[in-house]
């Protein structure tokens, strides 16, 4: 308040010394049009000088020209980032016409422009974070559902892939070939936009779950196959030697031994999954990426994207730490 009052005084003074009825007082219309011309010629400093020469209206006089010229000057000063002077002019106008829309808008813009970046960031955070967090819950839901589906699907496919039955094995080879060999984005498009033409219409959520589930099952299948094949053949022999069937041996002996070895590569897949869920924003799913993008398109505020990035980082970091803990826990039977 004090500052604006001071600057008001300062700014009023040069023009204000000229009493309204002094002879030779420049015509306010003339000054306004001269100033406008100078703006058109690009001589901004001179234009501001001209605009400032328009005297304040005496009580009862129409304030229109004064307001317009001060407004022009304020805009020019704002564009030159002279926020204090610009704000002073706005205050000058608002003293006379407190409801002037232009002056109010410019004053707000100045306040925004003057706020430090970090403060702006925090303010935006307060405004948009609830929306982003809500969208994050959808991202997490997709992640957890995929994490529940894909190991089961992956194990099934892996076991099919290592089957000694050639036909079975090639069916699963084909599946893995398709889903690992094409972009996830394309698979999502196919499921959401392509399947309806085959008479299967899925809502975005179902399509997203299906796309992520099928894709990640294929990736996990290859990891699990590698894990199973890395177990010493003697384990299967020993299991068979005590009378186990192939499936008993798989369930009780072979697959459990892969858990610890699978944690790092599967953990990496799930970290990639957190980021890959962003792709379902393209099939009308509102999750973190899409929410951030929506706010961004409305505000052109890049900090929104930074906030989304931070949320993704928090999620991936939590996953990284958890999977390392899990790996240690599963390794209790190892002598290190």
């Amino acid at each position, binding site marked *: 308040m004090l500052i604006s009052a001071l600057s008001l005084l300062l700014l009023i003074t040069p023009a204000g010394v000229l009493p309204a009825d002094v002879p030779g007082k420049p015509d306010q219309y003339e000054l306004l049009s001269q100033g406008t011309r100078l703006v058109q010629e690009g001589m901004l400093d001179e234009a501001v000088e001209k605009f400032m020469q328009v005297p304040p209206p005496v009580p009862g006089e129409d304030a229109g020209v004064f307001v317009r010229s001060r407004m022009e000057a304020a805009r020019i000063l704002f564009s030159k980032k002279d926020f204090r002077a610009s704000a002073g002019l706005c205050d000058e106008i608002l003293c006379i016409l407190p409801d002037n829309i232009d002056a109010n808008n410019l004053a707000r813009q100045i306040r925004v422009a003057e706020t430090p970046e970090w403060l702006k960031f925090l303010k935006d955070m307060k405004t948009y974070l609830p929306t982003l967090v809500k969208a994050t819950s959808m991202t997490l839901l997709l992640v957890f559902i995929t994490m529940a589906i894909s190991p089961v699907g992956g194990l099934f496919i892996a076991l099919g892939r290592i089957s000694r039955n050639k036909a079975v094995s090639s069916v699963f080879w084909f599946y893995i070939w398709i889903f690992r060999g094409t972009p996830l984005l394309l698979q999502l498009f196919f499921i959401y936009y392509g399947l309806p033409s085959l008479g299967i219409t899925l809502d975005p959520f179902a399509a997203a779950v299906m796309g992520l589930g099928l894709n990640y099952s294929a990736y996990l299948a290859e990891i699990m196959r590698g894990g199973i094949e890395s177990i*010493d053949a*003697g*384990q299967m*022999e*020993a*299991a*068979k*030697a*005590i*009378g*186990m*069937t*192939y499936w*008993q041996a798989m369930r*009780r*002996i072979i697959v*459990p*031994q892969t858990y610890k070895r699978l944690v790092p590569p599967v953990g990496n897949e799930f970290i990639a999954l957190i980021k890959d869920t962003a792709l379902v924003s393209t099939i009308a799913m509102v999750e973190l990426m899409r929410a951030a993008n929506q706010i961004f398109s409305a505000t052109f505020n890049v900090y929104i994207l930074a906030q989304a990035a931070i949320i993704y980082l928090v999620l991936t970091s939590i996953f990284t730490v958890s999977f390392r803990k899990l790996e240690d826990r599963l390794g*209790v*039977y*190892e*002598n290190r």
Partner: protein
Amino acid sequence: MIELQGVVKRFGSLSAVDGVDLDIEKGQRIVIIGPSGSGKTTLLRMINFLEKMDEGSILMEGKEVGYHKDKKGRLVMEKPHVISSLRSEIGMVFQHFHLFPHMTALQNVMEGPLTVKKEPREEVHKLALDLLVRVGLQDKKDAYPAFLSGGQKQRVAIARALAMRPKLMLFDEPTSALDPELVGEVFTTIKNLAGEGITMVIVTHQMGFAREIADRVIFMDNGRFIFEGHPEDLFSDRMEHPRIKTFLQKVL
């Protein structure tokens, strides 16, 4: 009890086991010796159906088991569940133990009766503890294999095989992967089993042990039995067979 007749196993053009007859009577302790590559492991694996034989037959209590012939007269193994139940009556101990590393010693021993025979847990627990006492490892029951010495691992492996109450125990070089100072404890364990009347076929390169435990020794060479008889005859000075003589001179 278990009888092999004319058993043949080929790997490509090589006959790893080349027409072998073997009659294993209840309570017998048969030791098979012979140079590396002579087919000893392959023979044991066929007795346990881990390897499919190409010719011959396996009889249990006088009945042919495990195979039938297809239209072209070739041997085909029976369905997996049939083979599994045959295997559950034969225990096998491997050179490299193959304990289940994710299970404790006790869990290793319990696994067969629990999963294969589906016996009640309390009973299996008691049986497994008894077996660990028998192999002298009651205090290691909760240890994971990675924390056991080689000799201890092999004794757990023996207990694991015994837990299925097999008719026959097969040992394939049970001490070959052990440090010399650990060999004794495993031999002692096997000798104790022999004292309990358990039928066993043992492949070993330890001639002293063979001589001590065997009531019948077989010398195998190039997939055939070139000697079969009492250990004292094999190790006696009267042994004239040149292959056996040079082999024994090398290992003794």
